[in-house]
């Protein structure tokens, strides 16, 4: 019930934030009805040895860290050097949200022709429009950008542009200076406001969701790179509320 309430509140809030009435957004075109199977609570398969090994997420390929532009290299280094950059509560961008992490549940809900995707630990959901396949001429930058889509069979092909470039890097924002694992010198993978992500989202079976992602970001990377991530359907999990700033933003700074 708690999850259902959270879902309904989310749908309501997002529909209103889109400037639509719920009545308007409750319209479901015949093609959007195919998204019903995406709905539910999911858990990424990363670090879940009990899940089907056929559905384990892959790393980005080719390695984005080998393709930095000068700006990308400098930005990656800036993030590595922390501390706490760009900040504590920045939302995840669309690429980061679709990483298939298992630490927190992912919630997918449908409001008419709008598909809503969010992971418990971030406060800004993705809104994927299923009633248009092209972006507005001038997209205002946002944390999650403008996501449009079309169907190819049972696969929802999602195209995202218009991010503000301020969200956490694709592999989280934590630099070695701030990670609990002192040996983590993994290069940060920033994204800029020029990021363009194309995804192919589909149910491989009722219990597993697959998302093939390809990113180009000419400001940050000299070439495109791709990966495939998976989630396991988990109706047994509670999806709790999360508001990053309930406490002071950097609670440890109070020491």
């Amino acid at each position: 019930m708690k999850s259902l309430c959270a879902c309904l509140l989310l749908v309501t809030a997002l529909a209103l934030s889109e400037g639509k009435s719920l009545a308007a957004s409750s319209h479901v075109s015949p093609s959007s009805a195919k998204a019903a199977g995406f709905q539910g609570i999911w858990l990424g398969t990363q670090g879940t040895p009990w899940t089907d090994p056929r559905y384990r997420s892959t790393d980005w390929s080719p390695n984005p860290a080998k393709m930095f532009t000068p700006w990308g290299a400098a930005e990656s280094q800036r993030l590595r050097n922390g501390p706490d950059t760009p900040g504590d509560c920045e939302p995840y961008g669309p690429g980061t949200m679709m990483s298939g992490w298992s630490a927190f549940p992912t919630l997918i809900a449908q409001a008419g022709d709008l598909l809503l995707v969010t992971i418990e630990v971030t406060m800004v959901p993705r809104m994927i429009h299923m009633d248009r396949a092209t972006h507005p001429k001038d997209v205002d930058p946002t944390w999650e950008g403008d996501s449009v889509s079309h169907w190819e069979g049972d696969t929802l092909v999602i195209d995202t542009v218009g991010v503000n470039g301020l969200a956490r890097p694709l592999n989280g924002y934590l630099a070695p200076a701030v990670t609990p694992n002192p040996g983590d010198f993994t290069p940060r993978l920033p994204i800029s406001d020029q990021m363009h992500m194309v995804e192919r989202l589909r149910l491989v079976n009722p219990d597993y969701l697959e998302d093939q992602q390809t990113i180009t970001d000419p400001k940050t990377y000299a070439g495109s790179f791709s990966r495939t991530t998976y989630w396991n359907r988990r109706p047994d999990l509670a999806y709790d509320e999360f508001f990053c700033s309930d406490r002071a933003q950097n609670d440890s700074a109070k020491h």
Partner: protein
Amino acid sequence: MQRSSWHSPRGVVIAAAALMIAQVALAHHSFVMFDRTRQLSRRATVKELEWTNPHCWLHVWIADDRGGVREWRLEAGPPGMLTRTGWSSHLVKPGEPVTVTFYPMKDGSAAGDIIKVVLPDGRVMGPGGAPGPPPAKSAHN
């Protein structure tokens, strides 16, 4: 809804591994202030469980070496993570004795990063982590 998976060795290993992944990628602030080369284990008395986002804090009283007591602030995961690993906001109550194990602060201040908390009934609680496997009836392995 899923609750504790900490009470089996498998659950502890899975949750610890998943938490490490989660902390690397998802933590909301720097962990650099914690000395992860040292672990302290102390008998303590609960003052308060601060059940709040982005991370919960367990406030305890710990005896110092001068015959007094000192308040320590010990950090755990977000409420959602704790809930899915057996915690609730009412799990511990003020005045209850617990044994806390944590990474202390590098600067010596009275705070730390929780590794585990042993409750009065012997249950061992972790700092929060990723969910464990689904219930057996819907397991896929």
